[in-house]
């Protein structure tokens, strides 16, 4: 039987790779490989997954050096000479093995003012948002993010300045900037024009290249740069 030589990161940040031999199967995903190791070879292996079908965004790992959803990545697509290297996502603190602590990642969504703030109550009628308007289209393009962290782990600007808000949080802010119902716009622009905000982005475009949902945080970040700069000139960020 054909086998895969899989190197998996074990331990915390000071851990190391360990080798496991896993039977190669047809239509095998990288998540299948990890699950085999945990169920058959070493039950102490820690990893995170839930839906297995690309809906939840919890199974992202570094596969042969590149951040990916393991459930939607076929072994045949990434294995080199029947070898795989699996590590936890970069740029996030390692809890153990393939599991990272995503607290900072989500805290940055909050500090980028990623919450909707409206002024209507349940007594008010529905807001009418015309689907064809440019703002609604821009929001549509950004809104499918499920927060898997692949873009954040792929971003070198995050590695270079760990306080940088990162592509996912800024993408979220961009979808709200284009929400005509939202009433916290200047507050949001102040939050994302901060020292470690959108202007720190250097358009490496790794986020857009790696996003498993083919979103382009680069588009939103560019929009935010321009909007917040113009607001600053008008004195609205002071």
């Amino acid at each position, binding site marked *: 039987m054909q086998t895969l030589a899989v190197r998996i990161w074990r331990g915390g940040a000071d851990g190391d790779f360990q080798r496991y031999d896993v039977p190669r199967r047809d239509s095998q995903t990288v998540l299948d490989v990890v699950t085999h190791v945990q169920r058959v070879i070493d039950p102490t292996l820690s990893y995170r997954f839930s839906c297995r079908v690309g809906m939840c965004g919890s199974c992202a790992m570094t596969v042969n050096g590149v951040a990916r959803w393991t459930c939607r990545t076929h072994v045949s697509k990434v294995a080199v000479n029947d070898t795989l290297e699996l590590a936890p996502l970069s740029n996030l603190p390692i809890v153990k093995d393939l599991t990272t602590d995503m607290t900072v990642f989500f805290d940055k969504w909050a500090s980028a003012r990623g919450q909707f703030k409206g002024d209507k109550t349940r007594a008010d009628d529905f807001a009418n948002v015309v689907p064809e308007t440019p703002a609604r289209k821009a929001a549509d393009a950004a809104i499918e993010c499920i927060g898997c962290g692949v873009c954040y782990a792929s971003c070198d*600007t995050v590695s*270079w*300045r760990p306080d940088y808000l990162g592509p996912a949080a800024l993408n979220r802010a961009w979808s709200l900037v284009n929400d005509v119902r939202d009433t916290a716009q200047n507050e949001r622009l102040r939050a994302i024009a901060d020292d470690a905000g959108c202007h*720190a982005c250097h358009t490496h475009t790794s986020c857009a290249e790696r996003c498993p949902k083919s979103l382009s945080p680069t588009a939103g970040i560019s929009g935010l740069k321009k909007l917040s*700069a113009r607001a600053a000139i008008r004195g609205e*960020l002071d």
Partner: protein
Amino acid sequence: MKPSTQAKLWYAQRISAMVLALCVLVHLVTILYAIKSGLSASAILSRTQGNAAFAAFYGLFVVAVAIHAPIGLARVVEEWLGWRGRSLGIVMLALAALLTAMGARAVWGLYGG
């Protein structure tokens, strides 16, 4: 740094970049032409002395560069050398002043020298 300062610096760098894009294009053509037709001091000075269009164009070029380069360099230093804050800002402001002064001296030299 205040968010508004950050945003304004970014804008200044990009606006100066737009000016520079045009200036560099003209400059590249000038370089090729100048080298082809001889790079002796008298050849250069005969083209530049008393040429007001030359002085105005390169004056604008110098100002745009003096804005553009220090803002970009500051970012590289922050990310790759880990030096940031007020001291870096002061050094980059000094660099902008130095580039302006040296550039103005060069343009003046070629125009009036």
